[in-house]
């Protein structure tokens, strides 16, 4: 399961992710992270059954945590199954099935959003 973690770095930079790994013993996979001097955002992947444990632990260290149930979403009425997104995605989320219809491996998506601007039909969006 994917968690989007936001944390402030104003009061010193606590190693939140490292701390949580040590406290919980859960191995966290960081899929995407943007961290600057004042704040950080990390998209992490953890086993489903330990999601609550990791989330609670992060919150207790002052982070905001959102469980992401969905990857990128496709508006079926706008999508024409061209495939412009296929080669753009760094995670190979998109593929074509035997009927040349666009298929999504949503669990691979790290919500980087690169496909959104590559879509000529404005059919792709980040989940709310």
């Amino acid at each position, binding site marked *: 399961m994917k968690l989007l973690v936001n944390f402030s770095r104003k009061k010193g930079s606590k190693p939140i992710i490292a701390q949580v790994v040590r406290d919980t013993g859960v191995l966290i996979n960081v899929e995407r992270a943007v961290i600057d001097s004042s704040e950080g955002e990390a998209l992490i992947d953890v086993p489903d059954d330990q999601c609550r444990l990791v989330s609670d632990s992060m919150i207790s260290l002052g982070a905001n945590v959102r469980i992401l149930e969905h990857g990128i979403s496709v508006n079926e009425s706008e999508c*024409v*199954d*061209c*495939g*412009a*997104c*296929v*080669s*753009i995605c760094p995670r190979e989320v998109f*593929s*074509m099935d035997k*009927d*040349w*219809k666009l298929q999504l491996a949503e669990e691979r998506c790290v919500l980087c959003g690169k496909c959104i*601007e*590559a879509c*000529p*039909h*404005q059919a792709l969006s980040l989940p709310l």
Partner: protein
Amino acid sequence: MHKSIDQINERIRDGTARVVTAEEMPAIVAELGEEGALKEVDVVTTGTFGAMCSSGAFLNFGHAEPPIRMERIWLNNVEAYGGLAAVDTYIGATQQSDTLEEQYGGAHVIEDLVAGKSVELRASSRGTDCYPRRTINTDLLLENFNQAIMCNPRNAYQRYNAAINSTDRILHTYMGVLLPNCGNVSFSGAGTLNPLSNDPGLRLIGSGVPIFLCGAQGMVIGEGTQHSPAGGYGTLMVTGNLKEMSQEYLRAATMNGYGVTLYVGLGIPLPVLDLEVVRATAVRDQDISVDIMDYGVPSRNRPALRKVTYAELRSGAVELNGEEIRTSSLSSFRKARQVANELKHWIERGSMQLALPTRPIDAKKSAKPMHQSIKGPRVLDIMDRQVVSIGENEEIRTAAKKLLKGDTNHLPVINGNNVLVGIVTTFDVSKAVANPGKAHLVKDIMKTKVITTTADEAVDIAVQKLEQHNISALPVVDSGHHVIAILTAMDLGKLFGGRWLK
């Protein structure tokens, strides 16, 4: 054996015609042989669904009371052509909205009309004795137009070169997003289903031939603009009634960072008259090849990196210099199939009959590049030949003096062989002076990645380099990488007043 168009139409009317899609045809020919396929199949339907920028529609509004001779016309803030009599216009697919720019354009106006949405007309005029009205503003539905006739000057390209980007920055093109360092390949076209690829000799496709156009029964007008069948790049000019079209086969789109375009669904039924038609319609994806062109080179003559077939492009990845590069299609093969299948059903139901061209299209023509009677300015017309450069082993102090004396902000740095090896700016020198450290020599502070130009490069290309790299000067180098001049942002001022025109 030979079948006449009348025999085929008679079978269509009887409901006994055997109709197959161009995708099904190769297997039929392989199974039954050419003679067998000729006997078996009467019609092959083709289809394509992709971005076709050269598209648009003629619209007639009818007369207002009091009447107006519209001179400037906007539909949902997208300007339409005002040079056609009083209440006619042409809305072009790629024209962008005055307010929403590339997020909305002529293609969106056309799609909105087809989808049954209302569109706001705004027009102005000087007013004449016979047309006194000066402005008009009204909301219109497709049904309110007397005529709404799609007329596309260039559609249904026979094939299209694939695109790649060798530069180190992302490119936004009409071929979509091209990732840096040859990160992806984008292509367009229906391959085996493409109409012209199934009739490359243009024996069956020509003026007056009935077609499927965005869900309506349309027809081929004749050759398309830039028609270039000699090299395998034929095009068609087509028309159809917008009022009979469906959003299913007509979609507006935006290539981000490039502009608006229209996705058009187009299919042509081909009568199987003789063995030559059988052979032509047996064409497969692996028989149609295109070049992969480097869009990183901003020239009409882009280098081709390799030849590739539609079968390879559609497989998801192509090999280039030993590396697998993922491919993206911009056109929809699923929709192309849908077009060919819908057309097949029309003919099976007898709702469309076939016709041979009333006038043939030239199958041997080549499109020419633009005749340019006046060449645009080149770097040599405005560059500054009084360039001051500095050796890489000079002291920073010397650089500072040269900058002051030369009244410049940029010093190209050269090595012992007079070859360009770096550049230092006033900023680099000031920084070195303000923070004295280990750096003493020019080579310690110079930037070694120098963006350069050449004397015969077009000024527009040099300007794009300045903008992209956010810099204000380009050393001008010869083929041996010697600095012969410098082009600074200040030199661009020489373009005004036409001083470069000789």
